[in-house]
């Protein structure tokens, strides 16, 4: 998994609450059997008009937001389905981090599995970031932020600095780009102990590793 340490990039503000996974990646695109290639379908129904051309009204289609790598959203981001295709699509499109006041649980977990960082900040702080983004864009340039997982901080170069909380183990895995399954298999002896204590037959052919 690609590590996440510190990322500085342009922000795409998506001023909507309750952005659900059906909008992030509509179901007709879940038929692929690969993990890659979902970026072209991100926010498909919002991004494209019925004739297939880009909808100029959609936030992410605005020229000033091209190349953005940090998504700024409102509460309950990623609600709905467990589809990991949602973070896959965001990642493949180019986003490395999503900042919102709250996230739906399953989407939140799925981000960490893919080296993407979901950052929870207070509503008031998210409001402030939307204001700063609007000001920057009004002045003709994208808004830029640094998301620093080492220091657990979000910063801009206009004096905004806020700490965010993140589970220490998840932080460690992201910083190091660790293989989650490999890490868990270090505990395979304890898994076998649990199975034995619960009356499960030992595995055929020894342990898997």
């Amino acid at each position, binding site marked *: 998994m690609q590590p996440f340490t510190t990322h500085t990039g342009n922000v795409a503000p998506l001023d909507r609450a309750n952005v659900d996974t059906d909008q992030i990646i509509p179901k007709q695109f879940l038929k692929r*059997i690969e993990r890659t290639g979902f970026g072209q379908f991100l926010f498909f129904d919002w991004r494209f008009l019925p004739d297939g051309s880009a909808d100029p009204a959609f936030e992410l289609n605005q020229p000033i937001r091209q190349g953005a790598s940090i998504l700024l959203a409102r509460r*309950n981001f990623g609600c709905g389905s467990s589809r990991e295709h949602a973070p896959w699509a965001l990642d493949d499109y180019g986003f490395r981090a999503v900042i919102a006041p709250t996230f739906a649980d399953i989407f939140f977990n799925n981000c960490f599995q893919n080296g993407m960082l979901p950052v929870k900040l207070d509503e008031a702080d998210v409001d402030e970031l939307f204001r700063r983004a609007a000001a920057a864009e009004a002045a003709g340039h994208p808004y830029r932020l640094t998301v620093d997982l080492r220091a657990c901080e979000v910063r801009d170069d206009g004096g905004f600095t806020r700490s965010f909380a993140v589970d220490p183990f998840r932080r460690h895995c992201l910083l190091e780009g660790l293989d989650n*399954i490999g890490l868990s298999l270090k505990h395979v002896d304890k*898994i076998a102990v649990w199975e034995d204590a619960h009356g499960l037959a030992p595995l055929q052919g020894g342990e898997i590793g």
Partner: protein
Amino acid sequence: MPAPRTLLDKIWDDHLVCSPDGEQPLIYIDRHLVHEVTSAQAFEGLRVAGRRVRRPEATFATPDHNIPTTDRRLPIADPISKQQIDTLRSNCREFGVRLFDLGDADQGIVHVIGPELGITQPGMTIVCGDSHTATHGALGALAFGIGTSEVEHVLATQTLRQSKPKSFEVRVEGELHPGVTAKDLVLYLIGRLTTEGGTGYVIEYTGPCIRRLGMEERMTVCNMSIEAGARAGMIAPDQITFDYLRGRDLVPKDFDRAVAQWATLPSDAGARYDRSETFSGGDVVPQVTWGTNPAQVVGVDASVPDPASMADPSDRSSASRALEYMGLESGTPIAAIPIDRVFIGSCTNSRIEDLRAAASVVRGHTVSSRVRAMVVPGSGRVKRQAEAEGLDRVFTAAGFEWREAGCSMCLGMNPDTLAPGERCASTSNRNFEGRQGKGGRTHLVSPAMAAAAAVAGHFTDIRQWRYL
């Protein structure tokens, strides 16, 4: 004397494999349910890393999301769907996982066949790459949805990294009035809790109104817990649970011994929940969603709300947007809204009792000429039982299409979809924009309400229905 524990505490404690310093705990997974949409990449990951499925006997697969609900002896028309289903088949064969395939008598929606076959049992941890895995909590299991990477982790290790969720007691006093169903109850609760009220929690439903529910009704309630943000919803097992499970295919051979053990699961008196809310079943009337998330819901006797009356600015803008998408005006009585399609099906409401309820509404009536209506039983077993009871003939005589088991029109991933602008009375669980088809307008209701709407051509209060 150990501290009193909730059902969640008991299952958590029993399944904790290890909690190493500085790491998230590992919990053991008793049952892993698999379907075609979220497993291909997981099996591929195993293959690339040279790993096997640790416990094939704990893993059960079925195709449900992507499959047509018409004649399944014909090849699947969509080549990408076909590839995904073929991939599930070859993965199950390669990794030794039991597959209830198309053509198998017991194939069906994964959250219908689990309980039906006795795969789901009290006290178990159950996961699946699908958010409505919460359904299995109705039998007193800790059951929740996971993403594809976690599917791969469970396949490889039979465990999951989890931090213990917080517990939320949702207590429902009293009882449901006639015509008001478990579906109405859970829609009402979601309306009160909001789509993120349960985030971070596992909900345990308690109280006399919940105890009165039958097993299929409990599944409907637990199924939609995710729509309130809670990954899992649980109902402690009792005699209703044990009677439901007795005799099913995969329950323990020494069933009475299992029952004695399961009977120790309910939350102890005095057990502490992180949060508790109490509701009254008698407050619930038949519900209809008007918007584009399940919490945007009102009683059938009410009207489409006015966004200007909402206190929170973000609720106001969501509601305005929703009304525009749904083609609705504030103040329109719900019972005046005409519909184009009716879908009775999905893991929320496609079991035999749902079909009986819909059939009793429909019997002797005819589907409105403006409506195209379909019934999709949740599994091969449900379909056969419904046919043995003659329910299929009640539906087809009235003008419904009677289909094969699958997720169907709950999500427009298979051929069953809404055309843009079509308005549907649906017994499914999500009314997000485009869920049933791009531009499709979904209203969530109970099976009886959907059946009545099919006949009337518009939403109508089931409590005043003329049964023939």
